[in-house]
């Protein structure tokens, strides 16, 4: 039997948010993947835009790399606005 490859599906809702991963579909080609994603993931007016990408084309970080990849940003508090204390007189900034 001829298998249809797996595509990951990303949908942007109408509220102007980023495309969000919602699941996957099987399809023979990219066009069909787009349509199958439309049939499956936007039946209730959920989306205004769809991306599909071959699942095998996605490169993902591995969970055992979690510490070296993500922990270093834990202590960089100076990247957050709340780190900078200003006198009340300045008002909202």
């Amino acid at each position: 039997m001829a298998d249809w490859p797996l595509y990951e599906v990303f949908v942007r809702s109408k509220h102007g948010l980023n495309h969000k991963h919602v699941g996957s579909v099987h399809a023979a080609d990219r066009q069909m993947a787009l349509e199958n994603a439309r049939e499956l993931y936007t039946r209730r007016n959920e989306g205004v835009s769809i991306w599909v990408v071959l699942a095998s084309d996605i490169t993902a970080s591995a969970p055992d790399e979690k510490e070296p990849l993500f922990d270093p940003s834990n202590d960089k508090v100076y990247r957050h606005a709340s780190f900078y204390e200003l006198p009340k007189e300045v008002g909202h900034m």
Partner: protein
Amino acid sequence: MYAQLVETGTKKLKTLEEMGPQERAFQEKVNDEIKIEPKNWMPEAYRKTLIRQISQHAHSEVVGMLPEGNWLTRAPSLKRKLQLMAKIQDEAGHGLYLYSAMETLGADRDEEIQKLHDGKAKYSSIFNYPTLNWADIGTIGWLVDGAAIVNQVPLQRTSYGPYSRAMIRVCKEESFHQRQGYQILLTLMREGTEEQKAMVQDSINRFWWPALMMFGPSDDNSPNSAQSMAWKIKRHSNDELRQRFIDQTVPQLELLGCTAPDPDLKWNEETGHYDFGEIDWQEFFDVVQGNGPCNRERIDARRRAIDEGAWVREAAVAHAEKQRQRRQAA
């Protein structure tokens, strides 16, 4: 339920002390309600059990289209036709969400579906019962989807992330299914002719016990439950969910003005629950083992659809390949 008998491969629970460091870290995450994601380490038995459970659940959605599809061409009004078609389509969609969750565990959808067609995979026993009159469409929405919801709502918090997210989506979409079914029955009972009312009672008589069986064997006969609960891929016991379902359903039954085919069904003031009669477990195990009224028909129908569509899927692949070659040549 939609996955009534899921083999876990483990009959005895390990304590945290008995586990190696990886398994222990995994179990502690589960205990802390941290979701397990596809690339996280997980015990092989957990992965296999999940594949079994999610695929059973997915097969149930897909096979579950058939008894309702049996009345789609005969739905008695345009409104009912649209509602039923949308509902059946949702079921196909829910099957796809679940297969998609299952594939994140490294399982292959086509292989799992092949197991279904070979009679090697299970699906909910309820779909092996025939739909014999129009009221069955209402009863399936009310009782069968009602039972499914009781089971699926807690599964939204199941430990495996993709399964949990699929269930959240399914529950959100399914909220109309049960109401749709109950409304069919209420309309027939309140405004229907005597013949229409008789359809409803006949339908409840046939589906009542099979709906109760959907929750699976009673707890003392459910050897895999303890492990599934420890892994939090099952969150309540079969009997607990069954009782919850009965307690919420009996008042709805009375509102319809119908009766259940159970002389022992009555309110128990002391326990605060309904008592009910003994389920015919022999019938349940017969149906699960392939000897229900429609097991053969259901499997045949699914196999035929996929087998007869093989040339279509092959053609689509062949065309995609030609397109790819043309793009490369250009």
